[in-house]
């Protein structure tokens, strides 16, 4: 083994404990990537069951299944778990698996820290679960954790605050690792502008995380001291201001939505060229559009707060800044479409999910543009129109990109092919049911149905029935995904070295399939 490796914290050379200890002590980026991906899938199931509890209650007007307090706990935990437990770790899993291979590095820069970043997560998840069993239950404050309600909740709130601290620490450590790996460990000849776009989107995402997760940590810390140590940051009685909380939260919160979206963009930017058998159109403009989105994301936060009584000048500023983000996003969508233009396209499952992403993310982008208009948003704020909007971009956009990525790289990871016919079934069931779930919510919202309510007037009944049917259909379809993956791992056909003709990044061109446990001990030679 080369001397290069042992000096950057690569502790597992010659030491391969078996069973569970292998996973607990591992510092191998591929193992850690696998851990992240399975963790996020489990969280996706947990958050999904919570969504189904919500949809079950909303199947008919009136209160039938759960009491309103528990309903609120379900929305809160569903949001927190999906955002911090399912989507973010999933893309960190992709980053761990892929970035070292894509840039020709032997592992992540800080292998031991990488292990810690992952193993913090189960503890955070456990805190969230324990909060259900405290007096008063889990907090029912919404995933945004707005004051002043958070100042009044029971001790479940404290556990949630600590969980957010842990999740933030994990993300920051993971991001530092990713940035250092990309900046310092690229193989000779792998210039920054030669990296696959996935690496670029993660580099920028990691910077966003380092800049914004600490702000969220600050916001929840203030909530904690308001609750227990007599400070009054947000407590009106002592001169605090709940609106201040919203400003701080959304200063984190808007970049956060790009933290979710950018890695999804990265995955799609690898998948579409591979199945169009053409290089990505406008690579340099893709990089600058990603950076542009990231920078703009810091000056639009108050579009979540049009109704708090901002001066008109403030509303206008945030409205124009928000609408401006449509420009770099439009550049991206244009480039994806242009990549497919006159390509020799084929539609295997990863490509189906990528194209599904393209359509549905763009639809969510359009409703976002509608909501960016202050005058319109004052009508639609906190209605189901918003729920539909952010599920199109986050729940459908990010999840579909994630599925595209899993199907795309599964052969590389496991050396096995999934069942293509079942994969297509998974796609079509998902795309149909998810649209049944969320498309009708636009209408419910336009007609005035508020979000976060367990009961509603009769007039919204039809839309809610349709939406609930879709949600259960979508939920059940995801069991098919689990089946496809497990049976591929167990008994899938052996994958060829390069199952996708058009794939051209290093993990496909310079490494065998499945990827060996240690890759690029000696950096690859790039022309």
């Amino acid at each position, binding site marked *: 083994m080369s*001397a*290069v490796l042992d*000096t*950057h914290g690569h502790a597992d050379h010659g030491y391969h404990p078996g069973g569970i200890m292998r996973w607990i002590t591992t510092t191998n980026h591929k193992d850690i990537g696998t851990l992240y991906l399975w963790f996020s899938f489990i969280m996706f199931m947990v958050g999904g069951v919570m969504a189904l509890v919500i949809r079950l209650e909303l199947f008919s007007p009136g209160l039938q299944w759960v009491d309103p307090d528990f309903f609120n706990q379900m929305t809160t935990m569903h949001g927190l778990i999906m955002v911090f437990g399912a989507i973010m770790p999933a893309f960190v899993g992709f980053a761990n698996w892929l970035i070292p291979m894509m840039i020709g590095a032997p592992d992540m*820069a*800080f292998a031991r820290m990488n292990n810690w970043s992952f193993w913090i997560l189960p503890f955070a998840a456990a805190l969230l679960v324990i909060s259900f069993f405290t007096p008063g239950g889990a907090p029912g404050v919404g995933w945004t954790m707005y004051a002043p309600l958070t100042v009044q909740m029971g001790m479940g709130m404290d556990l949630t605050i600590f969980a957010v601290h842990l999740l933030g620490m994990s993300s*920051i450590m993971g*991001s*530092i690792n990713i*940035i*250092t790996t990309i*900046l*310092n*460990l690229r193989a000779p000849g792998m210039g920054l502008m030669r990296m696959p776009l996935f690496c670029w989107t993660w580099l920028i995402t990691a910077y966003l995380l*380092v*800049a*914004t*997760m*600490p*702000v*969220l*940590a*600050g*916001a929840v810390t*203030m909530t904690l001291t308001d609750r227990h140590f*007599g400070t009054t*940051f947000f*407590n*009106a*009685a*002592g*001169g605090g*201001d709940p*609106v*201040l909380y919203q*400003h*701080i939260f959304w*200063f984190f919160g808007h970049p956060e939505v790009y933290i979710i979206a950018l890695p999804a963009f990265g995955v799609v930017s690898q998948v579409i060229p591979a199945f169009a058998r053409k290089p990505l159109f406008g690579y340099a403009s893709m990089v600058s559009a990603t950076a542009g989105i990231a920078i703009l994301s810091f000056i639009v936060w108050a579009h979540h707060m049009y109704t708090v*009584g*901002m*001066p008109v000048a403030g509303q206008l500023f945030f409205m124009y800044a928000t609408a401006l983000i449509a420009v770099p996003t439009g550049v991206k969508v244009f480039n994806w479409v242009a990549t497919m233009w006159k390509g020799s396209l084929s539609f295997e499952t990863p490509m189906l999910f990528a194209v599904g992403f393209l359509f549905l993310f763009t639809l969510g982008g359009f409703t976002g543009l509608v909501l960016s208009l202050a005058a319109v948003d004052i009508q639609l704020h906190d209605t189901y129109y918003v729920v539909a909007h952010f599920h199109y971009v986050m729940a459908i956009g990010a999840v579909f990109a994630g599925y595209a990525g899993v199907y795309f790289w599964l052969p590389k990871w496991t050396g096995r092919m999934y069942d293509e016919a079942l994969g297509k079934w998974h796609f079509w069931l998902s795309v149909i049911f998810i649209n049944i779930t969320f498309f009708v919510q636009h209408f419910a919202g336009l007609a005035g149905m508020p979000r976060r309510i367990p009961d509603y007037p009769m007039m919204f009944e039809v839309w809610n029935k349709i939406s609930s049917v879709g949600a259960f259909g979508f939920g059940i379809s995801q069991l098919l995904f689990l089946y496809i993956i497990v049976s591929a791992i167990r008994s899938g056909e052996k994958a060829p070295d390069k199952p996708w003709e058009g794939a051209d990044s290093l993990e496909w061109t310079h490494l065998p399939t499945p990827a060996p446990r240690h890759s690029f001990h000696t950096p690859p030679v790039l022309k």
Partner: protein
Amino acid sequence: MAEAAHPAAERARDNRRVLTRLSVVAALMFGFGFALVPFYEKVCLALGVNSLVERSEQAANTQVDTSRSVTIELDANAHQLPWRFRPLTRHLSVHPGELVHVEYEIANVRSAAVTGHAVPSYGPALAGQYFRKLECFCFKPQTLAAGETRTMPVTFLIDPALPREVHTITLSYTFFEVAGLGGKS
């Protein structure tokens, strides 16, 4: 040094340098979150928004606009406080620019002194900036002895710049208990 015999050691050092820098950024951003608190206050002060409990200066132009009148509705709440709190007038009609005096009655029904602070809010919210309070019990915390009942004034005028389409303004006060000032029993 560039051609060092230990490229690996050098790389480890480079990695640590990036780690240190990014950790500093993260720490600074944690501080930035807290820095937003005074920053927010300054911005609100500079823009004149959110100044609900400050005394307004005597309006320079006290011309009374008799061409229209505005209905003022008064509302009072005590938030988890053992106080009976009510306006002595429920609603009244005023001309913009006219100096108006109203009174509220507060009764402490607990057998201990309690300190509370009232926070006003307005409906429609935009009317707040035209509501000039010259005297108000909300300017500072109020302490009521056990069983005490007190009548407290609010003196205000409506800025004649109030948009013409506003015909009714609701002024709603909520009293919050101030902890730590001998309020908690």
